[in-house]
């Protein structure tokens, strides 16, 4: 979707000599790209302005280094500032007297009801006993929606008739929780606009009647420039204690998180990562920062990889790779490992700078090509896989026939494979290897 900031900065700094210090003029060009990247990521205009000012101060006069490109240097600063702004993850405050009340608020359709159920499940996993409260009497079937979710999880839901005012329902729910030994009460309130006086007053009343420990704003990660005003509006009325960002499983860059953090200062506590009730994650600032910069979700990918990839196989092929002994059989093994990571489009979404690829070729095509490549290698004899040089035209014809592909495709594969081998040989040079490591490890 978007070109990554790093790619763009690479372009800006292409002409730059790698010695001396970053001048004000160099920085100015780079900051233009930073500004555009943040705006594209939906960070609020005014927040961007202030943010870019901070980067400017840090970047001008910075000493250039041989190991890392100026572009990487600026991205590193941006990344650090983003981390600073996003802040660390904070646990739910469950101190003091039980029952602890958690109140969820937000605009219409942001994900409050689903998140209420997710939180309940999350807390039950750590041995709490939650009670869900249906405090949305306005939206058609909102009460029923929460009841269904409660049934699915086998977690109790407190509800009353939709004619009862929500502050009364919530107050009654607390009594029920006390009597029934529920130590956590989660209030699912109706979606509302922050400018709707009457409904905002209703929230104030609910808060007064239930003294929640946590008042969490549930915000859609796709929110645009208005995130600032929405967050301010809710914060002003009910003093938010935290933020939950939902629908992060899409391709939204999530700049709204920066905006909301900047104006409210409250910590981001959780991310909603899907429609299913276990799809909630404790917030990680580094992941979100990378995402906002379009650097992909490398950490998630690495974690996935650790889960599914056979370490022995990976180690063996890495060793071979570095020794330059990598053959088509290893290649096949690797393809099989990659497939384990999940559908290709998902994997690619997580890779930095790969957004561009999906712009030009569809991941379906890639999936298809992956399959064909596998078929080709599968149709080769073991000797051919280990030594593709022996593939003469009659062998190629046989392989093409066996795999249902063409000789041309086989030639393509072999030439790609040769290039890869060449690149790997280069990597045996320690300097080049260090460069590669810098590229991937530069942001830790």
């Amino acid at each position: 979707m978007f070109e990554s900031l790093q790619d763009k900065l690479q372009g800006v700094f292409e002409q730059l000599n790698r010695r001396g210090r970053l001048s004000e003029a160099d920085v100015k060009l780079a900051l233009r790209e930073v500004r555009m990247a943040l705006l594209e990521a939906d960070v609020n205009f005014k927040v961007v302005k202030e943010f870019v000012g901070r980067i400017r101060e840090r970047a001008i006069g910075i000493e250039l280094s041989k190991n890392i490109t100026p572009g990487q240097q600026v991205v590193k600063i941006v990344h650090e500032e983003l981390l600073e702004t996003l802040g660390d993850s904070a646990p739910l405050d469950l101190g003091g007297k039980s029952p602890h009340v958690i109140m969820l608020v937000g605009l219409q359709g942001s994900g409050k009801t689903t998140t209420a159920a997710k939180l309940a499940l999350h807390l039950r996993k750590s041995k709490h006993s939650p009670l869900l409260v249906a405090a949305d009497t306005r939206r058609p079937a909102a009460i029923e929606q929460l009841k269904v979710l409660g049934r699915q999880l086998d977690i109790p839901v407190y509800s009353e008739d939709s004619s009862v005012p929500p502050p009364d329902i919530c107050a009654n729910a607390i009594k029920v929780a006390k009597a029934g030994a529920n130590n956590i009460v989660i209030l699912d309130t109706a979606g509302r606009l922050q400018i709707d006086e009457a409904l905002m007053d209703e929230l104030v009343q609910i808060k007064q009647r239930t003294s929640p420990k946590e008042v969490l704003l549930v915000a859609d990660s796709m929110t645009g420039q208005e995130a600032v005003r929405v967050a301010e509006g809710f914060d002003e009325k009910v003093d938010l204690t935290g933020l939950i960002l939902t629908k992060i499983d899409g391709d939204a860059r999530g700049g709204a998180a920066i905006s909301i953090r900047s104006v409210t200062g409250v910590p981001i506590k959780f991310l909603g990562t899907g429609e299913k009730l276990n799809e909630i994650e404790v917030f990680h600032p580094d992941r979100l920062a990378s995402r906002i910069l379009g650097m992909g979700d490398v950490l998630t990918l690495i974690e996935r990889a650790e889960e599914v990839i056979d370490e022995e196989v990976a180690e063996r092929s890495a060793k071979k790779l570095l020794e330059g002994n990598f053959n088509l059989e290893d290649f096949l093994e690797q393809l099989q490992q990659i497939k384990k990571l999940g559908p290709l489009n998902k994997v690619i979404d997580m890779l930095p700078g790969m957004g561009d690829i999906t712009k030009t070729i569809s991941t379906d095509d890639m999936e298809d090509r992956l399959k064909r490549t596998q078929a080709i290698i599968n149709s080769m004899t073991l000797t051919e896989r280990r030594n593709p040089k022996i593939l003469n035209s009659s062998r190629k014809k046989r392989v093409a026939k066996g795999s249902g592909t063409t000789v041309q495709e086989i030639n393509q594969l072999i030439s790609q494979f040769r290039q890869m081998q060449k690149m790997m040989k280069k990597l045996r040079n320690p300097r080049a290897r260090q460069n590669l490591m810098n590229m991937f490890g530069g942001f830790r």
Partner: protein
Amino acid sequence: MFGFNRNKIKEGLTRTRNSVFGQITTLMGGGDIDDEMWEDLEALLIQADVGAETSMELIETVRERVQREGIYRAVDAQRVLKEEMQNLLDGYAPSKIDEHRLVTVILVVGVNGSGKTTTIAKLANYYQKQGRRVILGAGDTFRAAAIDQLKIWGERVGSTVIAHQENADPGAVVFDSLKSALARKADMVIIDTAGRLHTKFNLMKEVEKLKSIARKQVHGAPHETLLVLDGTTGQNALSQAKHFKKAVEITGVVVTKLDGTAKGGVVLAIGKTLEVPVRFIGVGEGVDDLIPFDSKAFVDGLFEEV
């Protein structure tokens, strides 16, 4: 267009006018053009979610025209900007909904929570008031109580709702909805679908399947595939429109929740890059809070003095 209510659109956009675009008006009302005006203008457009790129291009175009046409007064620059903004929204084929046929089928798609189900209730209300007999298909069999939600709306607006059990095959719901529309001689079927993020390959495939089921049953169906976008959404709306257009050939867009402080400026970027027209806007949670989109009224409304 249709029974288009100008006051309603004004009312819905009042808040918008009071904020960013209102400022643009003040900004451009008096005096001569200067550099600061252009800068402020760009800032205001970006803050209206028009997007940095589209905003810059718009301003560039207006600057060029101002130069070429020898315009020096700010008010005239405003006229040019309005024209250019409208240009991005205009020139598309009219909706096929109003063509004459036995049964018109509308498929409603979009990401989670954008306002699909509510918009369907509003559409049913809107077309029934024009004397059409509307049947609703409860194609979201996935989300908790989505079926109940549509049933309640159906009752309120007086439309029959065809529904299966939770977790039933949505394809079967589409099939039954169309079958019953033909049997009951209804003139319109509006099909609700589960919210889905545009990046989810299998879910997008599912919509394709729904379309082909509809097509097999009713010639040319679905006659309109509407993408419902949350007006609060920023630049991601472009990605949504792009993916939904590619996968299921959406023919129009509905932008909801414009009764809030959000500006819906993303509409311009979508018009410009994807050439998908906006058909309606949503300005509230009630069944009457739907306005047929009219680019002139929309842009005028945004610029009007309060």
